């Protein structure tokens, strides 16, 4: 038999390749560059490759809409949009990651050991976090564009594995951090096993591993429906786990709380985009014509997720945990975009993902700023009177919260409106009602935080607000501007999305 040399269309893959290259260089830097120079070198390499890849994404935005790498990835409008969102979010998160205060000096050292203390004194830093980030991002870029089961699975692991490690790198409360890493890892592996098993049955059903093939099989109604259903169910479990939908959400509060805040920000924002990107592609292309089987179930999950997230968030006292639950609720809102299964739903989801991601990074960026001698203060009761202590920080946080709550003139409102109207259009009125209800519930705890910050007097307990480093400032500023701008003048972005967001099979 003779082999045809595979055609890869490197230009279309270049965004990912650039990142991988940057990551590898990063690894080498770890080996060959002196401790002192590593941080700055790594940071510049990471930022450089991210920006470069973003530029690349911009350049291929129109030549896209074709398959690449022998049809195992598809670079179409949504792909470009999602990749761009992921990259932008990653860039502003990297600014946070650059804050060395957040990461342990020596991951291998025991918490509280001399080794650790010594490493601290010697100003050691885990610069490995940069290459890890790049690996994760490249996985995220691949996830939403992969168009067959292998690539999808590989991408999933590519983005997950680095995150598992990054979650364990916190400088303070290391036990908790490591615990979160363990939980994330075990459950992640567990869910990816489901994912894989589901993939197997889809392959068995359609005797093809590409989405196109599955789609055709569904249309042709060839093959055994039981396989299809098992396939859809288990594959969904893997994806729902990533987006943190109830009942596969259990990991997210613990991990969000335990992981270093910059990682949490990155994870919360970027992973959601990637995972939902993949989900949209699969459900809109591969499973589109089988919606009779999955929309009801997914709607149910969406409703439960919204309500659960909002209800539990009310009771939270820890800001990171609260944001975690709120992100669960948002996962529910986003699911209604998947259910919509129409153009409007796709556009809305993409807009929502970007807006929400940016706001999330901004929100966590603020969290990194509120500290006392022992590091970050995440106990909400100690956020009292933040508005007095540092009005700007408090105000920006309030804006992000209002965006989460979906108050008009913030990006969150446009997102909510568009995604709900899409769902309503597709007849999922129940989901919309639930969404509205849970938004009302959610509003309650967002407002409670605002009250804490502005309407209660500060308690003198050494809680102080870090003068933001210029990088963090950039992050906050960018997120703030985007959040407000998308609230007041969303038209340009919306138009752009509407023009580009068309899936091809």
């Amino acid at each position, binding site marked *: 038999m003779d082999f045809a040399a595979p055609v890869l269309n490197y230009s279309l893959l270049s965004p990912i390749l650039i990142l991988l290259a940057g990551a590898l260089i990063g690894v080498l830097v770890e080996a060959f560059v002196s401790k002192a120079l590593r941080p700055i070198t790594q940071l510049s390499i990471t930022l450089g490759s991210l920006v470069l890849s973003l530029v690349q994404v911009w350049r291929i935005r129109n030549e896209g809409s074709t398959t690449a790498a022998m049809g195992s990835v598809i670079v179409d409008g949504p792909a470009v949009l999602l990749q761009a969102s992921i990259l932008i979010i990653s860039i502003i998160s990297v600014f946070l990651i650059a804050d060395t205060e957040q990461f342990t000096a020596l*991951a*291998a050292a*025991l*918490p509280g050991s001399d080794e650790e203390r010594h490493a601290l004194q010697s100003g050691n830093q885990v610069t490995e976090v940069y290459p890890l980030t790049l690996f994760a991002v490249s996985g995220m870029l691949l996830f939403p564009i992969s168009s067959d*089961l*292998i690539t999808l*699975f*590989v991408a999933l*692991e590519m983005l997950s*594995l680095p995150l*598992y*490690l990054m979650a*364990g790198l916190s400088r303070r409360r*290391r*036990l*908790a951090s*490591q*615990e*979160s*890493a*363990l*939980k994330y*890892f*075990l459950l992640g*592996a*567990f869910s*990816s*096993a*489901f994912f*894989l*098993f589901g*993939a*197997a*049955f889809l*392959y*068995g059903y359609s*005797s*093809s*591993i590409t989405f196109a093939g599955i789609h055709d099989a569904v249309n042709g109604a060839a093959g055994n429906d039981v396989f299809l259903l098992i396939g859809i169910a288990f594959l969904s479990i893997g994806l729902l786990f990533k987006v943190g939908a109830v009942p596969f959400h259990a990991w997210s*509060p*613990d991990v969000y*709380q*335990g992981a270093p805040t910059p990682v949490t920000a990155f994870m919360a924002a970027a992973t959601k985009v990637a995972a939902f990107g993949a989900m949209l592609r699969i459900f809109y292309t591969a499973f589109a014509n089988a919606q009779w089987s999955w929309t009801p179930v997914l709607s149910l999950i969406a409703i439960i997720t919204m309500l659960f997230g909002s209800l539990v968030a009310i009771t939270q006292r820890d800001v990171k945990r609260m944001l975690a639950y709120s992100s669960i609720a948002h996962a529910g809102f986003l699911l209604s975009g998947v259910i919509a299964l129409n153009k409007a739903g796709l556009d809305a989801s993409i807009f929502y993902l970007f807006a929400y991601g940016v706001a999330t990074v901004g929100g966590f960026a603020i969290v990194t700023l509120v500290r006392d001698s022992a590091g970050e203060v995440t106990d909400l009761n100690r956020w009292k009177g933040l508005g007095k202590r540092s009005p700007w920080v408090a105000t920006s946080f309030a804006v992000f919260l209002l965006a989460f709550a979906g108050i008009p003139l913030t990006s969150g409102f446009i997102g909510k409106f568009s995604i709900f109207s899409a769902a309503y259009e597709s007849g999922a009125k129940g989901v919309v009602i639930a969404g509205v209800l849970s938004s009302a519930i959610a509003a309650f705890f967002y407002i409670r935080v605002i009250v804490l910050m502005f309407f209660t007097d500060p308690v003198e307990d050494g809680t102080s607000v870090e003068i933001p480093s210029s990088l963090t400032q950039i992050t906050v500023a960018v997120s703030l501007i985007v959040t407000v701008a998308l609230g007041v003048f969303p038209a340009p972005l919306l138009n752009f999305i509407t023009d580009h967001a068309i899936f091809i099979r």
Partner: protein
Amino acid sequence: MDAANYLYLSALLFTIGAVGVVVRRNAIVVFMCVELMLNAANLAFVTFSRINGDLNGQVIAFFTMVVAACEVVVGLAIIVTIYRSRRSASVDDASLLKR
């Protein structure tokens, strides 16, 4: 013999793995159960590849093995760290974060 039996087997293995994850305490064992689930999936792939009469399934199986290997690397690293700092590999001890 009927290939379907292999599917039953893989389903059985998968279930055993899944249940194992839930019932076993030791992190290593839990992790091994996960591996078992992955391999169950592999078995399913290979079987289907046999049924469908193409190679994709077998290719995926190889990919899976590689990925599993990577998971082992990462996983063990984390588990070992936990073990060192906690002097225990029981997943139940790691429950600081809750509610």
